[in-house]
């Protein structure tokens, strides 16, 4: 892959072929394509898995998403974002019950474009062993690098990936934390390019702060990432909350754009996963089982 894969280069010039595409499983899913707060008449020209789409809103704020040849695509509004699909989703967008709790502040962090596979973006979000090295002195710090055993599984009842009892010592876990604590986490993957993180909430220790990553696949090696949060935090300004999360994500971006191969391997034959990578492995197993392979590499090279 050459350096700058711009949106222009990533998208085909013709309408998509009529035969069944190889990524049918992922085509029938919901993906974030824009922010509700930024809908306008002229529209956001973007893409979903190589197909150009336009996301616009009428004067009443109702969203409209059109695809190649002007066909109307399914659309939903959830978690402050506009969601759409190239196919026919059979399920509703996943639920996050914590988002309905009174007192929650919702934070639209805003989009960041990353030259990597949409699946790589999710895998990185699920990882904690990188905290002391990529998010130094914020989410983790040497010498507190050990990753203790935790549980990661594919939950058959909801058909989602869940990692629980994840713990990591952090010098400054969030904008509202003062001093270091051992933060507890849960990670959840309810859709192929979406992840939900639940972390210890310092102002309300019996609740979880919710931080999500909604990833829009533009091409197999290009995505728009939409972080979103539902927090109990009445003190920090919205600007600070957004800047903090953006800073974290930009640190991750420098990793994501320099991994080889750029696609997410579903065969770890050229890698050495450890017990600390259990969530990533569970995620890859779940992708494999569902044939969610857009952005994936099937054979290790």
């Amino acid at each position, binding site marked *: 892959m050459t350096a700058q894969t711009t949106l222009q280069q990533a998208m085909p010039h013709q309408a998509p072929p009529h035969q069944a595409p190889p990524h049918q499983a992922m085509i029938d899913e919901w993906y974030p394509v824009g922010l509700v707060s930024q809908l306008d008449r002229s529209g956001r020209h973007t893409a979903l898995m190589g197909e150009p789409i336009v996301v616009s809103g009428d004067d009443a704020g109702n969203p409209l998403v059109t695809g190649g040849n002007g066909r109307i695509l399914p659309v939903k509004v959830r978690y402050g974002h506009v969601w759409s699909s190239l196919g026919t989703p059979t399920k509703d967008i996943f639920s996050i019950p914590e988002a309905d709790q009174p007192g929650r502040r919702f934070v639209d962090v805003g989009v960041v474009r990353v030259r990597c596979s949409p699946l790589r973006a999710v895998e990185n979000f699920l990882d904690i062993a990188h905290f002391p090295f990529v998010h130094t002195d914020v989410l983790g710090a040497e010498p507190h690098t050990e990753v203790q055993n935790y549980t990661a599984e594919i939950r058959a009842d909801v058909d989602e990936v869940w990692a629980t009892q994840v713990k990591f010592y952090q010098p400054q876990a969030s904008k509202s934390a003062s001093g270091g604590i051992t933060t507890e986490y849960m990670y959840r993957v309810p859709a192929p390019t979406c992840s939900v993180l639940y972390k210890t909430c310092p102002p309300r220790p019996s609740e979880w702060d919710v931080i999500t990553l909604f990833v829009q696949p533009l091409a197999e090696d290009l995505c728009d990432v939409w972080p979103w949060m539902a927090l109990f935090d009445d003190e920090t300004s919205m600007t600070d909350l957004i800047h903090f999360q953006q800073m974290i994500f930009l640190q991750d971006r420098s990793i994501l754009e320099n991994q*080889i191969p750029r696609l997410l391997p579903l065969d770890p034959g050229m890698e050495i996963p450890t017990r600390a990578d259990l969530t990533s492995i569970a995620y890859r197993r779940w992708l494999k089982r569902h044939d969610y392979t857009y952005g994936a590499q099937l054979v290790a090279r």
Partner: protein
Amino acid sequence: MRSDTTGFWTPVALSADLPAGTVIPARMAAGTIALWRSQTGHIAASADRCPHRGMSLSHGFVRGEVLSCIYHGWSYGRAGNCLRIPAHPGLTPPDAIRVVTHDVRDTGGIVWVASGIPAGDPPDLDGFTPLRSLTADADRAALALAAGAQADEDGRLVTNIAGQDLCLLLADQPEGRTLIHVLVRSGSDAAARIAASRSVERLRRMAESASHKGGVQ
């Protein structure tokens, strides 16, 4: 074309451009490598990919005699063996966990990295001293044409521009570009070094415009 098949040396950088405790990416025929110098001054060259999850090692950091990956901190010695996996501090990593390394020489102020097993040492640079490196958006043939001289098997092109002897070490880069290490006669004064720098920049411009590349992009 190179006739021997046992291996060859590539001039990747000026030694002065790699301070102790730093790592930089460098280009070889087969791909990118992580070129680094330890705190005690020893240079090593390893494949630019951490075997853990494929992060580029040239984005990592050097501490003491160890190169660490920026993603999860996996640490490697100069011989390429993994010394530490920070997520699992209790484990002494086996020798089998390693990165491929390449033989490196630091001679005459130039860092040479081996592809395969070269028959001998890197070429002797015969009274020339490194000045600087620059990249041309032109291939070797275009540079040779502009210089009025051919590069030899080791990528060395000796020429005389405006009465000044220059030695250029050429290393092919992707997409038709060439990395040029410029050497001047040892003992050249400041004025001569500036003149050499300007001459090579002119040479580059000539080669680039002749190639219909480079210049204004």
